[in-house]
């Protein structure tokens, strides 16, 4: 059982004054002054249009921004709502701005939001990123209505992304969650979610806030907890997700460690659940799906291939502790290929992921080191995928990923055997 979280005195007073709320919208932030005002206005307008008359509270859980982010949240006004909505809306909308405590990261920020939602007895909650540029009023409806009106507990986002984006999601997280737990939640690390008040209480009660979950791992943990906890799960199509450009390759190994460690930690403790699941089923999807244009993305294929080759040259003694001997042996021939013909077979990739999951469970070495050693293998698979899909359409890419997922499902007995 997790330790109870302490909120600031001012926040407690504010919450007591508000009393109760049907909807809580959480926005975790850190130095997002240029975008958060837009997000707050979009959320406010969305609540006014679709949930007018229902009491809603916006909670900004901030990580100590020094650029005026919190002030931007308080200053964001919706004086032009009549222009947006073409009608005078009824709003019962409050704002709570607070700093969060704990390990710096989105997980700690969301924990504060869960705690406030629990105190306000919220029926539905919504979390959106503070740097969104493509958020619309409909996002609020699509992520909250399934909870309030259809009784769902968790609404996962579904975006249209560039075919090369989200490779960790496409190559590891989505296929693994699908194969192990039987639910086709397409983007389990979406970042923008809707969930019920009772699921928020469940999240709050878990003792994970001193782990990788508190950082990058929160999104995948929320999704897998909802799926493994027997909660009603659905998806909502939101279109394109455009947010502030970050340095995309920044600390890939750190990202991989936090996300994959979070997922593997859940897998580690739910063997009895996933070992008996066979196949997978689609989850209900809300929202009208449409195509969006996406900006081209540059990929330095040679750098990725070189990263993989360096791994084969230097990390074999480390890999031999994690990988099956057959899996490790199959990697050397791939390293002899050039970037123009580089190919990483999907069965081999699935064996790599399953070997690592089993090695994580068996604690063959320090877990952070274990997942960091996976980076060159991930680069090799990604390079192969990018090369093969260079001229493919989005539909062809989806077909390719579907094939990968089916291989994950077919090879599940391999993981179960290694686990035992």
């Amino acid at each position: 059982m997790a330790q109870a979280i302490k909120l600031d005195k001012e926040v407690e007073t504010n919450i007591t004054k508000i009393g109760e709320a049907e909807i809580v919208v959480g926005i975790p932030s850190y130095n997002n002054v240029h975008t958060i005002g837009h997000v707050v206005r979009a959320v406010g307008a969305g609540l006014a249009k679709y949930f007018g008359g229902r009491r809603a509270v916006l909670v900004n859980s901030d990580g100590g921004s020094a650029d005026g982010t919190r002030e931007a949240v308080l200053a964001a006004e919706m004086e032009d709502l009549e222009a947006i909505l073409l009608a005078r809306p009824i709003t019962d909308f409050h704002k709570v701005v607070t700093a969060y405590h704990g390990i710096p990261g989105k997980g700690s920020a969301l924990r504060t939001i869960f705690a406030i939602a629990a105190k306000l007895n919220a029926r539905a909650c919504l979390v959106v990123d503070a740097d969104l540029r493509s958020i619309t009023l409909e996002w609020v409806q699509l992520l909250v209505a399934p909870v309030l009106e259809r009784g769902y507990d968790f609404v996962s986002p579904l975006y249209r992304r560039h075919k090369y984006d989200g490779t960790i999601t496409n190559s590891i997280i989505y296929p693994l969650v699908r194969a192990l737990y039987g639910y086709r939640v397409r983007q389990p690390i979406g970042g923008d979610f809707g969930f019920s008040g009772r699921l928020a209480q469940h999240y709050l009660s878990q003792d994970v806030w001193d782990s990788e979950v508190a950082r990058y791992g929160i999104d995948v943990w929320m999704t897998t907890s909802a799926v493994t906890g027997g909660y009603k799960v659905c998806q909502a199509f939101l279109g394109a997700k455009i947010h502030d450009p970050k340095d995309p390759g920044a600390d890939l190994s750190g990202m991989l460690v936090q996300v994959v460690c979070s997922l593997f930690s859940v897998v580690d403790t739910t063997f009895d659940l996933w070992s008996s699941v066979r196949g997978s089923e689609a989850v209900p999807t809300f929202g009208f799906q449409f195509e969006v244009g996406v900006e081209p993305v540059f990929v330095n294929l040679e750098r990725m291939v070189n990263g993989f080759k360096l791994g084969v040259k230097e990390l074999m003694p480390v890999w031999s502790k994690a990988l099956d001997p057959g899996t490790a042996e199959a990697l050397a021939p791939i390293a002899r290929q050039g970037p123009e013909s580089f190919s990483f077979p999907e069965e081999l990739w699935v064996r790599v992921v399953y070997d690592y999951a089993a090695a994580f469970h068996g604690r063959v070495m320090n877990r952070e080191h274990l997942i960091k050693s996976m980076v060159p293998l991930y680069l090799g698979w990604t390079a192969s995928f990018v090369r093969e899909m260079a001229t493919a359409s989005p539909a062809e890419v989806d077909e390719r990923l579907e094939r990968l997922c089916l291989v994950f499902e077919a090879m599940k007995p391999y993981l179960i055997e290694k686990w035992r």
Partner: protein
Amino acid sequence: MAEMWKAAVVDAFFRFSEKVGRLLPNLLAMVSVIVLGLVVAWALRVIISRVLAAAGFDNLCHRWGFDVALARAGLRCRPSFWLARAAYWVIVFFSLIIGVGALELEAVAGLLSTVFAYIPRVLAALIIVAAAYLVANFLGRAVLLAAVNAQVKSARLVSRSVRGFVIVIGSTMALVQLGIGKEVVVAAFSIVLGGAVLALALAFGLAGKDMARDFLQRRFSSPGERDLEEKKDEISHL
């Protein structure tokens, strides 16, 4: 005269038998202690071997890399075997010490107290060496992974250097703890370390000045200038 001679001989035999009579029980005690010690040592070896095997000690050693270190030293059996063997010989050693002590010889008493006073230092030195080995392996692997993921070509060299450095420090500390040539060891370590640092500084400063300039230029130049040299991926991995 004959009487005196007879008395002297009898006296000598009497004194000898007295000494033997005093020594014999001590000798018997020594033999008993040694035999008992051998029996206890054998029993302990069997018990330790079985308990460690049941507790997964060999798997733990494999995870920490101790089995690799033993194999490099030519010790090919399982770590639990060697630990049980070590326990056996420790008991035998102590049995010998206690057995010899039972003889109550003055010369031996002083040696015994010196040996017992030295034992804690030996234990401390063993702990230092084991800890240094574990830390060296951990840091070496952490550096190797960081260097490979940063695509540093000499990743293994850097990793081995870090590992070697930690092991040398640990070994030096262990030798100082044992009091073996303390001043010589400290002086030798300082000279070697200082010499290595000076050599590296000269190598980088003289031979690698162009590389250093390139590194600093890359590090402090604007992102646009950097991207022209090596275009980074624009993939959003999550």
